[in-house]
């Protein structure tokens, strides 16, 4: 870049650079730009403008050529992403296809990605549960990973800050394991879910709870959200297409347009970050190198502060690829632990059953959330022969269906007038904490390159004995609770899915107090390069059981304010 003149450098210089425009990056961008910081947001994928770029959002079922199903050809070409429940005809365009970004699986790992402005915030399940100190104190209490450098009190105000702006629907449940937040009205539980709640109370007292899962949907305070151009959730349950009402939080509907409105954001799309530039003389990061996704040409951008929010594993990839004389093994990697202690959520197990009570009732309308079991296992003390525990989803449903046994006019009448009701179907799925280990890692492959000339990421992540024991316990405990509630035809399952399909991959750039055993400090700065912040899933020291997105958003907002105070 020797031929760059001074003006060109000036044009390419910002106060802050945010790598990634998804859920966490957009929060960093929103906070920075709102406070006057000239910020460049770099996104490797294409732009996706709210509403305008949701091509399927208002399509009726008959308008999909295969009524939602994907063709054999697409599934054969994309065995990895095809395993994701949301990769269907209505949202396939928001997922990365297998060939677009190859990676090396030393062990099976389903890496599900969304490369576009907004990232996976268009596709997420929108579940937002707070962590408590039962979670932050986990590694210290149970002797794994390293102690988190922060506690609930550090993050609580930022949870509130994020919840208020994003819009979170939920009930104040008063549980120490799952702190209450700034909630808009909750969606109702149905009659069988409430019955089950009562049964839990009867048999387990205050030890186990099934509550309404908190979700990032607007259910009140409508004038406030109108400022963002967002409106009440219509319960369409078509969120993965992008919501024309902005009823749920996505970067596209909320934080990105908000940042844009300040006039302080520059958005550079179709730009794959190659590495972060480290200036040996200045002893700090000075910018980033990007590869234009179309021309494949390299460009440089400069800033005082850099936020890395590329989504957990790609954040690892960028840091590993940012080598210099000072950091030959990746930026900030003095400890040698960059890419290690990767963990995820164990989603392998589930249970289904039927309930023959409350048969005079059914449900109507839609609901974008369901029931939720906050973790009860090993919560206050160690109770089992495995560490930590699991949260779980829970739902009961019942609707009318048509008898399809006949043919001819009888079949036609039945189809047009579905009047059959079976028993209630009830079910739960497990969300288990996995223990971060040095042997679960990502690294750069020495030979294989991706289509942009970047080293491919090789992934070596697996379950362990703790996970197997936890699956067994989950299935036993759920079976017991289902039996106590009088549910019948109970069926347990372990689908043996590979890690990754939970889409909760975390770690590799973990936070900690000691630079020898962690990469980031309590403010999300690289210990060795304090003007580089990592606030996405890569920063997670442990995983606990909650859906992690809310925590990333709160991290990003908190770190952005730290950066403004210290580099302003």
């Amino acid at each position: 870049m020797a031929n760059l003149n001074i003006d060109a450098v000036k044009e390419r210089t910002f106060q802050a650079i945010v790598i990634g425009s998804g859920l966490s990056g957009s929060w960093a961008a929103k906070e920075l730009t709102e406070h006057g910081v000239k910020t460049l947001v770099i996104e490797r994928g294409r732009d996706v403008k709210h509403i305008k770029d949701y091509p399927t959002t208002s399509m009726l079922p008959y308008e999909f050529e295969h009524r939602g199903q994907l063709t054999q050809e697409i599934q054969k070409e994309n065995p990895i992403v095809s395993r994701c429940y949301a990769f269907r005809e209505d949202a396939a365009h928001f997922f990365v296809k297998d060939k677009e970004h190859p990676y090396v699986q030393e062990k099976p790992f389903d890496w599900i990605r969304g490369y576009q402005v907004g990232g996976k915030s268009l596709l997420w399940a929108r579940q937002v549960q707070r962590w408590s100190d039962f979670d932050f104190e986990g590694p210290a209490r149970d002797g794994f990973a390293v102690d988190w450098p922060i506690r609930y009190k550090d993050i609580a105000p930022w949870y509130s800050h994020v919840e208020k702006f994003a819009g979170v629907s939920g009930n104040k449940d008063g549980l120490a394991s799952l702190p209450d937040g700034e909630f808009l009205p909750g969606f109702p539980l149905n009659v069988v879910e409430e019955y089950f709640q009562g049964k839990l109370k009867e048999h387990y007292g205050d030890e186990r709870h099934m509550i309404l899962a908190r979700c990032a949907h607007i259910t009140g305070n409508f004038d406030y959200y109108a400022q963002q151009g967002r409106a009440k959730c219509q319960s369409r349950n078509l969120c993965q297409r992008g919501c024309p009402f902005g009823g749920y939080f996505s970067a596209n509907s909320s934080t990105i347009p908000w940042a844009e409105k300040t006039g302080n954001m520059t958005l550079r799309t179709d730009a794959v970050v190659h590495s972060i530039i480290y200036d040996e003389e200045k002893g700090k990061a000075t910018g980033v190198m990007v590869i234009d996704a179309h021309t494949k040409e390299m460009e440089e951008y400069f800033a005082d502060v850099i936020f890395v929010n590329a989504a957990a594993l790609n954040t690892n990839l960028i840091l590993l690829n940012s080598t210099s004389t000072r950091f030959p093994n990746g930026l900030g990697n003095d400890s040698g632990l960059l890419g290690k202690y990767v963990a995820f959520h164990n989603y392998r197990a589930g249970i289904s059953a039927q309930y023959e009570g409350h048969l005079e009732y059914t449900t109507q309308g839609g609901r974008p959330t369901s029931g939720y079991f906050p973790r009860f296992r090993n919560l206050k003390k160690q109770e089992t022969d495995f560490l930590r525990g699991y949260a779980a989803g829970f739902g009961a449903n019942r609707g009318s269906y048509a008898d399809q046994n006949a043919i001819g006019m009888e079949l036609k009448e039945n189809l047009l007038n579905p009047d059959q009701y079976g028993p209630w179907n009830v079910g739960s799925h497990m969300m288990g904490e996995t223990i971060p280990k040095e042997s679960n890692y990502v690294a750069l492959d020495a030979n294989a390159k991706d289509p942009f000339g970047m080293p491919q990421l090789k992934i070596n992540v697996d379950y362990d004995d703790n996970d197997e024991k936890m699956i067994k316990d989950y299935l036993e405990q759920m079976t017991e609770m289902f039996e106590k509630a009088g549910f019948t035809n109970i069926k347990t399952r372990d689908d043996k899915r590979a890690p990754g399909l939970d889409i909760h991959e975390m770690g590799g750039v973990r936070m900690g107090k000691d630079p020898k055993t962690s990469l980031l400090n309590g403010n999300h700065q690289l210990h060795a390069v304090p003007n580089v912040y990592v606030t996405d899933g890569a920063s997670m020291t442990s995983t606990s059981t909650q859906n992690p997105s809310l925590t990333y958003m709160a991290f990003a907002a908190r770190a952005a304010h730290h950066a403004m105070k210290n580099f302003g």
Partner: protein
Amino acid sequence: MKRRDALRSLALITGGLVLVPSCDFSKEDILTAYQNLQITPSLQQLLKDIAGTIIPVGNIKSAADIEVQDFILVMVNDCIDADGQKSFMQGLQGFEDFSKKSGGSAFAKLDQSGKEAVVKAALAIELPENTKPEDPQKATKEFIGMAKRFTVQGFMMSEYIQTQVKPYSLIPGDYQGAVLISDLKPERING
């Protein structure tokens, strides 16, 4: 993919009648819209008759009236694996023979009740455990299963049903978790 999409669109406009010139004039042309299948216009017509038997005309249109056979063929061509496609084709091609054996006549020549009897007989086929993969009974059973499933799906998820008969709403309304079934008085649709 572009060419395929173009052919597909043309096929939808013309009802699948995009023909590839064939050198062997003794054979019927193959509809190119379904490149994984060997569908002739007469097989397409037979499938239409079967769909119209499964969901016949009454106060509202039949599956045949809204050309559900084209949807069935798109689904089998695009969303069914090679083995399933083979059974489907074998069963469809052998269905006239099945009709003659089971109903005593070519399918098209039967009246509605005769056609229904043939379709019911196909659906009722029970295969002994030692059935060979190439047994025509097996193909007939698999074919009619797919034909029925896609007829039901194609009919209920058609523009006609979802706009004129049972208008579909993308907004289902607020969630109610305890609705007494006895309070529901759905308006009966007379098929």
